């Protein structure tokens, strides 16, 4: 049977891709962020996952306002990156796992979640940057991917409570997959930041730290907030914590193996966590 070996959550802002492309990882500005991934690299080397299920939000590459799914899942044999308007170098294509994708689709829709299924999907920096952070160096990716996309662009967004339940359902779907696969679930985005409006540059360290602690101790804690209450606390882009939450909810109780929190990268409070199933 398939098994979730762990969950990794990380920020994904475009500036990370620029820093990687320019080789700035050890510059003073970037070092505290990139160095946080050393324990993740050791853990991935040890656990050798076969597949990454990656929960992210599209920023206007695959989806536009003409058709905006609340929840979407890739079921493609391959996913490529593409120009998002600012000439970030594209990365090597990602191999998909359509059989696992369809198993998750069958299982999660049977639990009354309405997923949009995508047999073609281009993936943006919210997939590419986390992948490059986890498996640096470029070249062929050592895992197949199943992208799960959640709308954080156009309101109303799904509630934190709904995202948590979706994550639980994805967790059950993976656990019921008959093939012996080792799966890492990745949640990307966050933490607190806001790009738009007079409130641009907003960061809330206290809330971020409380949220990170909750993922280990009390993962449903943040579901008590409405979407707008979350925007107020963590900014219009900080709402990407929904993706961390969904990824985290695929696991039951966990232990924290590593965590990093650094302010700022670009306009963002950057967070990273590595969680493993407890027991």
């Amino acid at each position, binding site marked *: 049977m398939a098994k979730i070996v762990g969950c990794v959550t990380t920020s994904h802002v475009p500036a990370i891709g620029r820093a990687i492309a320019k080789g700035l990882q050890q510059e003073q500005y970037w070092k505290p962020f990139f160095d946080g991934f050393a324990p993740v690299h050791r853990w991935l080397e040890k656990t050798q996952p076969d597949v990454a299920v990656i929960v992210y939000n599209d920023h206007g590459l695959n989806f536009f306002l003409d058709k905006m799914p609340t929840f979407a899942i890739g079921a493609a044999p391959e996913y490529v990156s593409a120009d998002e308007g600012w000439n970030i170098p594209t990365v090597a294509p990602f191999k998909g796992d359509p059989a696992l994708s369809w198993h998750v689709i069958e299982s999660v829709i049977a639990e009354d979640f309405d997923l949009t299924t995508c047999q073609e999907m281009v993936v943006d920096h919210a997939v590419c940057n986390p992948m490059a952070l986890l498996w640096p160096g470029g070249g062929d990716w050592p895992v197949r991917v199943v992208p799960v996309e959640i709308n954080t*662009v156009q309101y109303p967004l799904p509630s934190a409570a709904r995202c948590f339940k979706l994550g639980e359902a994805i967790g059950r779907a993976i656990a019921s997959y008959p093939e012996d696969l080792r799966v890492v679930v990745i949640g990307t985005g966050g933490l607190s930041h806001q790009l738009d409006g007079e409130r641009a540059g907003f960061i809330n360290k206290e809330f971020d730290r409380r949220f990170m602690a909750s993922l280990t101790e009390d993962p449903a804690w943040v579901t008590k907030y409405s979407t707008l209450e979350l925007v107020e606390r963590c900014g219009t882009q900080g709402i990407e914590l929904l993706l961390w939450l969904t990824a985290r909810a695929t696991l039951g109780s966990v232990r924290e193996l590593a965590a990093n929190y650094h302010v700022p990268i670009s306009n963002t409070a950057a967070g990273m966590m590595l969680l493993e199933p407890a027991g």
Partner: protein
Amino acid sequence: MTTTKQPIWGTTIFDGDQARKGYALNKMCMSFNDAANRAEFVRDEDAYCARYGLNPAQREAIRHRDVLELIAAGGNVYYLAKFAGIFGLDVQDIGAQQTGVSKAEFQARLLAEGR
């Protein structure tokens, strides 16, 4: 029904009202994912805006390269970032513009958050 019942200072929630108002503007900005379209916009901005049917407020906001004005005209920051990309501007440039400070001051403010 809109979702903007509890206003958050300095924040426009991109709800159905905004999505309807800004559709043409955001659609044009979405087209800037393609380098050929970015070049076409630069070559003939008026014709490009006309092709997407921008209303006068959107056309003026594009002319002014003013992010707050673009948001007021229905723009969404994810698509507007592609417009900013044409001029080599990143999210710190547009953060500085929206908060009325220089980029250096905006960056210093963020660095101060980290201390």
